[in-house]
């Protein structure tokens, strides 16, 4: 990514503003396409019978930023991007809260779409975050899905 954009990586407890974040990426003179992905705490937990009270997200400070920066660099090497943003929250999140976002900007739509999907696939299985769902029945660590690991295969050359 010698010629690539400087990725914007944010790991924080605080919420973020999607419009503001997408707006930053629209600034490039040759940016024709911006894709964003936002993940959100669903009101209905995956497997539990009881409804979700809140979610706890743990991460590995230091490694998290390194892993996300590395993913952004890989994306910028594979596609002609004018901007990359990855934001992931940690701590306590309520149903309906935003969890994370990725945003990619490029001249053309395919690069922006593919890079955003690539970042999501890598982030799901390679960024050190762990989710715990807390319901009235107790707390349970979310299991990794095999499909998430398998999703990485499509990006191997």
């Amino acid at each position: 990514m010698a010629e690539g954009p400087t990725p914007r990586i944010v790991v924080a407890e605080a919420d973020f503003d999607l419009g503001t974040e997408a707006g930053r990426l629209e600034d490039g003179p040759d940016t024709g396409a911006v894709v964003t992905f936002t993940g959100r705490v669903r009101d209905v937990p995956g497997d539990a019978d009881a409804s979700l009270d809140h979610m706890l997200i743990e991460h590995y400070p230091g490694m998290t930023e390194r892993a996300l920066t590395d993913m952004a660099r890989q994306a910028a090497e594979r596609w002609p991007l004018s901007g990359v943003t990855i934001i992931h929250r940690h701590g306590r999140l309520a149903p309906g809260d935003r969890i994370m976002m990725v945003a990619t900007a490029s001249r053309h739509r395919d690069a922006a779409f593919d890079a955003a999907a690539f970042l999501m696939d890598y982030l799901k299985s390679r960024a050190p975050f762990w989710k715990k769902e807390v319901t009235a029945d107790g707390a349970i660590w979310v299991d990794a899905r095999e499909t998430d690991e398998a999703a990485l295969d499509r990006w191997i050359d």
Partner: protein
Amino acid sequence: MTLDVLYFAWLRERIGLGREVIETEAATVADLVAELRTREERYALAFSDMTTVRCAVDQDLVPLDTPLTGAREVAFFPPMTGG
């Protein structure tokens, strides 16, 4: 060799701490795991099924047979579930 050893998510909960300093001569991550298992029941429990344990050496995700030469920080955690 002195290592910072970190635990996350249910590994942290089972072992009962998030970080400790360990003096070891283990050659690889797998050797370190074997050594930890013999220490106390809670370690044996945490490392009972290594298919559900992932490892990072100096903040890079690595396989369990990775040598510890020159390592300063080793972290153990379940498969990641971010996003």
